[in-house]
């Protein structure tokens, strides 16, 4: 990403848009590779894809500074890529290799890279919300110019910690952005069986903070909304809630047998695929060749990364000293 101008800007430049487009394609390709690897039986455990939702994680992280912290969920690939993590090391982690970001300890759902401000996927639904809130607290108390962004799902929005975090963040004017990625499902259950209201951004009013609903399939709209909320947070005016509406095109995870999403819904949302939408704008502005080159390069990068990651070695086990419950073993005398 090109360095940001000193003043917060609320719309991406065309170069920034192209870079976000590239990242969406990288994410899509990375998940295609994972899908194939899963079919081939070389993955372990569940994998949650964000097909069709790439604009949310990529657009949001695109509007942040490198030093800003982001937390995400079990479905965090777009955020990992958006925060600048390398596909090779993401894939290696998901495949349980020594070369993965966390040496195979984390796996698919817990990837973190503190140097990138990528403060973790999180497989406890809702946990990304107080996590970002705490990071915003630390920035505020230490007087550091960084904000935190929590991404979380419509299912997570029903957890008590979501409400508690928003209350505390608003009360203390913490520099945090709550980005609710509403993909209509929590696991296999439709949002209408989980939430008492259809529009979740309205809950912001209960905490005296701004709330808005945006098109989560429009990467530029996501960038703009997050840029505004981030600027507000940086100014010391406190948190915001952004509800990005999108749709999960794949099943819940690789273990999902599916069948509960309607064909009409799928077709309707496929027509609004975030990469297709973004491509149309970019082709208009930059010409088809430039855009296609970027897409091709992105796919090649990921393919090469997947191949390399698969050849990487599995990690060797090392006991974790700080967890040892017995003093003589850890501390000596």
């Amino acid at each position, binding site marked *: 990403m090109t360095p940001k101008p000193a003043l917060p800007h609320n719309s991406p430049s065309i170069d920034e848009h192209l870079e976000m487009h590239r990242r969406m394609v990288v994410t899509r390709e990375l998940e295609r590779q994972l899908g194939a690897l899963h079919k081939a039986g070389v993955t372990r455990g569940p994998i949650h894809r964000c097909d069709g939702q790439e604009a949310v994680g990529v657009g949001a992280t695109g509007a942040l500074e490198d030093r800003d912290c982001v937390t995400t969920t079990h479905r965090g690939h777009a955020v990992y890529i958006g925060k600048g993590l390398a596909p090779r090391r993401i894939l290696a982690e998901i495949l349980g290799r020594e070369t993965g970001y966390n040496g195979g*300890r*984390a796996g698919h759902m817990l990837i973190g890279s503190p140097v990138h401000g990528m403060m973790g996927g999180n497989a406890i639904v809702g946990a990304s919300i107080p996590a970002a809130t705490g990071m915003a607290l630390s920035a505020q108390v230490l007087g550091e110019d960084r904000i935190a962004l929590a991404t979380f799902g419509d299912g997570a929005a029903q957890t008590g910690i979501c409400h508690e975090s928003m209350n505390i963040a608003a009360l203390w004017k913490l520099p945090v952005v709550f980005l609710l990625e509403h993909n209509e499902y929590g696991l296999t259950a439709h949002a209408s069986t*989980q939430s008492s209201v259809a529009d979740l951004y309205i809950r912001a009013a209960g905490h005296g903070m701004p709330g808005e609903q945006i098109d989560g399939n429009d990467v530029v709209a996501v960038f703009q909304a997050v840029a505004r909320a981030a600027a507000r947070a940086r100014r010391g005016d406190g948190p915001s809630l952004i509800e990005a509406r999108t749709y999960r095109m794949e099943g819940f995870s690789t273990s999902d047998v599916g069948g509960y999403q309607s064909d009409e819904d799928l077709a309707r949302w496929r027509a609004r695929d975030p990469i297709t939408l973004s491509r149309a704008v970019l082709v208009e502005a930059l010409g088809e060749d430039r855009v296609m080159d970027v897409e091709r390069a992105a796919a090649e990068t990921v393919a090469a990364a997947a191949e390399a990651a698969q050849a990487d070695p599995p990690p060797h086990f090392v006991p974790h000293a700080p967890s040892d419950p017995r003093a003589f073993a850890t501390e000596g005398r």
Partner: protein
Amino acid sequence: MAIMRYAEALNAALREAMTADPSVFLFGEDVADYGGVFKVSRGLREAFGDRVRDTPISEQTLAAMAVSASMTGLRPVLEIMYADFMPLTLDALVNQASVYGYVWGDEITLPFVIRTQGGGGLGTGAQHAKSLDSFVAHIPGLKVVAPVTPADAKGLLLAAIQDPHPVIVLEHKRLYNTRAEVPDDQGPVPLGRARVARDGSDVSLIATSRMVVEAEAAADRLAESGISAEVLDLRTLRPLDVEAIVRSVAKTRHAVVINEDWGFCGYAAELSATIMEHAFDDLDAPVERVATRDMPIPFAESLETAVIPDADVITAAALRALA
């Protein structure tokens, strides 16, 4: 006598209990339309309608609702998808269910069940692979069961639903697809009674949940070296069948206690302390404790297998006990 999968046996228990008693109510995330992520409640929504409900992701409140609904006539069966999420239910258990069961004890009953599943070995990562047995086994007024066989899965779940006190049912993700015979008339299995999974005379392998399977494999290996291992499947973690433990240890004079939760301050520690108190004089060697290494469960296979105990680890412990 039918061959059933463990998950099917649980399903059969739920179906029977719901048929017999209209106050049995099933709820949890994805349990209704989808039939549960492990398919334990498959078909029940169709059969029992609104008595089977999908819920929001609100474990803390769901558990508290199970407690209070049970005091007012319902028999709720709540599914908590992973044992890793049980910490979210602990206030409801230790500060509500436990307390009210005592302070109002004579005036109410608390017939609710929480089903959950724990255990590692499938690459689900540190937040989806734990066995937090000791958190619940520690709490006064609760019962805790951990079936290993399909027959016990059915029988213990039936007994849990019938019990007037709270019962936590700890299932295991690696047992759902195991198959075995379940008698057609399999009724409730009494809570608080261990099962001798295999008779033996040299060493007692006292295990819970899927560790019983590993202990049986260890017993096979020990048999090859001419060592006769008894395998005790505790089935109920609380109340503990101390008599069965003492009987076995008095016979073998050597014990290995095995539980898939962490060792430190874990359920295996309780087993060791119980033997200390009730069978010290019977012991020819210290009890060996086998548990998951005291550290988070890593994702990669090469790491996870180093952390969760298996037949090798149990065999080695038995040999140490006998050395």
